[in-house]
């Protein structure tokens, strides 16, 4: 244990000081939970949520990453049991050589299984495969009374925990259904789309033919180019589609870290001019159309993981990520949001657009069918707060919502409107944790 450490999210915006314990065995964790003080306890993984979801100011934060073992693997059924602190990176390195891939991966491998459950994360395959929670067969939850409950999808508490932002208990171990793959590569089609209509048309028409799909949008393009983008879609590459030189070691997975961003970047480096230049180059370098390219899993899913600590390039003021989903049919809202972001110059690099498919049963799970847009924005401009408040109104008016794992600034009043099952979730949580032992800065800020 070390007492009093400032913890922030990936956006490095709003740290608070908590007592951090590195997770010991089950009995020790149970003791921590039952002896928790007034400010409560929270599990933390690799700190990739952007805002204050993994902070608990004045309370106890349990660093779960020490518990990262893979407990059992069944290559026949593709079921694995892992400790909650295991990262997806660790699982890929260990299990890809056995032909097992994680069922859902976000844009980084540096998230833990516990975090993936707490945020019910999604990836490029949500439109066909859904979110992470759908592949969780069971998990052990350390509850507020110090008992450990084995939960399966039949229980309410299971679904209050999936997407529950760590507020129902500590996930200790989980059994996951992995995805069988023949290689650690993807077969990728790339298309350049001239504007938003072009992009949405192509995605609506043919996304379902692909397992994985994502578009990178240049939010600073305007006029007839508004929403110009690069659409990349693909499948896990079958062995017979690989070039001969790769077939002998098709399941090798050794992603390399190219660089570590040093802590020397000033705030304001990413401004409208530098970002516009980057976006232009990105768009130009993409092929107009390319089919059947072989890309490694790391290059296709996790390009940013090649630079450790890349969040430092936003400088000491930090940044936030704004991610929302609006239902199909609300394309005009999507267009207006992109326009507002572009007009005010409040966009960094490329925004990511995806189609969501069927939701999981998590009360607070973010994905619902529709279009989801995510983009990073540096903190600094005086207009930023007002702009995002107006975007919230657009999203709400369209029946959409925002992602709690990314949020660092929503007003408490918006949450119940975005998550209509909030009260139902509160009931389940209150029954499991009547005294509110499990809490976080996010929970306090939003009044969850």
């Amino acid at each position: 244990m070390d007492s009093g450490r400032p913890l922030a999210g990936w956006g490095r915006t709003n740290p608070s000081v908590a007592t951090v314990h590195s997770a010991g065995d089950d009995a020790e964790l149970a003791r921590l939970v039952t002896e928790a003080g007034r400010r409560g306890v929270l599990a933390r993984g690799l700190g990739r949520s952007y805002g204050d979801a993994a902070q608990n100011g004045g309370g106890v934060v349990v660093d779960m990453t020490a518990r990262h073992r893979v407990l059992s693997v069944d290559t026949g059924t593709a079921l694995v049991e892992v400790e909650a602190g295991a990262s997806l990176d660790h699982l890929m390195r260990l299990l890809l050589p056995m032909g097992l891939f994680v069922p859902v991966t976000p844009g980084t491998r540096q998230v833990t299984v516990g975090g993936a459950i707490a945020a019910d994360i999604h990836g490029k395959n949500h439109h066909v495969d859904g979110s992470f929670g759908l592949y969780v067969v069971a998990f052990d939850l350390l509850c507020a009374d110090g008992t450990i409950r084995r939960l399966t999808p039949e229980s309410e508490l299971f679904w209050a925990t999936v997407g529950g932002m760590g507020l129902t208990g500590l996930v200790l171990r989980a059994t996951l259904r992995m995805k069988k793959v023949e290689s650690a590569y993807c077969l990728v089609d790339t298309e350049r789309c001239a504007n938003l209509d072009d992009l949405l048309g192509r995605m609506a028409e043919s996304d379902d033919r692909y397992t994985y799909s994502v578009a990178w949008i240049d939010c600073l393009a305007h006029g007839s180019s508004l929403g110009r983008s690069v659409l990349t879609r693909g499948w896990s590459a079958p062995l017979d589609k690989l070039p001969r030189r790769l077939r002998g070691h098709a399941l090798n997975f050794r992603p390399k870290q190219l660089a570590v961003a040093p802590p020397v970047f000033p705030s304001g480096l990413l401004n409208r001019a530098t970002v516009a230049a980057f976006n232009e180059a990105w768009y130009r370098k993409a092929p107009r159309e390319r089919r059947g390219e072989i890309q490694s899993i790391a290059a296709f899913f996790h390009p940013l993981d090649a630079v450790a600590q890349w969040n430092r390039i936003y400088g000491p003021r930090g940044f936030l990520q704004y991610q929302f989903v609006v239902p199909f049919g609300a394309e005009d809202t999507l267009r207006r949001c992109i326009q507002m972001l572009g007009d005010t110059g409040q966009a960094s690099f490329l925004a990511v657009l995806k189609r969501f498919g069927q939701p999981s049963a998590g009360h607070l799970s973010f994905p619902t069918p529709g279009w989801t847009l995510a983009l990073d924005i540096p903190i600094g401009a005086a207009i930023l707060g007002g702009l995002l408040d107006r975007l919230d109104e657009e999203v709400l008016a369209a029946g959409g919502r925002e992602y709690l794992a990314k949020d660092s600034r929503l007003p408490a009043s918006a949450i119940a409107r975005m998550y209509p099952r909030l009260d139902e979730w509160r009931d389940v949580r209150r029954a499991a944790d009547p005294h509110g032992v499990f809490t976080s800065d996010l929970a306090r800020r939003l009044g969850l």
Partner: protein
Amino acid sequence: MKDAIGNVQRVVVLGGTSDIALATVVKLTEERRGVQVTLAARPGERRAAAAAALDAFGIRVTEVDFEATDRTSYEGAIASAFEAGGDVDVVMVAFGVLGDQERAWQDVDAALELVQVNYAAAVGCGVLVAERLRAQGHGAIIAMSSVAAERPRRSNFAYGSTKAGMDAFYTGLGEALAKDGVQVLVVRPGFVRTKMTAGLDAAPLSQVPEQVAEVIVAGLRAGRRTVWAPPAMRWVMSVLRHLPRPVFRRLPA
């Protein structure tokens, strides 16, 4: 809990009728309605007027009795202010008196009243507020000092001495609380046209409370430890501090 943009959810003002404090609260909450603000001050018309003024901006105001000259009121006032809601993002220590400066160096009671309000009460409340914010692991204190704290002048040295004391205390408190995630911002305004200075001749670089509020909110969001209002006052005071005494003495009051 404050958010990534710097929006706050709860503010406590000790000395809740201060013009600068009220302007700061308005500036700090202008982007979000429904922020909860607790005004700790002497009960009466002025506090009611302050509450009504904030209410007009869509701020949810609660009032707590606090009397800087009454040592026994501090704990209760701060406990009620903190326990009236969730985490407190900002505590503003804004009470103070200017007094009659000529009496204040010739009359023991007048001198000690300045010391009690501007220094002793500020330190006492600082201790209590620090304990609360440490327990939260986050938060900020805005301590209203003065440029008079930097170099005493013939015309206001009794006031200046009390502000110098509270300035030093809060500057040091900021160091002590840094590891607890608590920011302490010491504010050194020059001449501000407020109730406190009503009837005095305005000094050079004089300003209105709204201008001070803007400097405070910018400094708070930038994580600063000391700000001067107007900002140019920092360099003016830096020069004044080093002027030879015979020259300094001849400057217009």
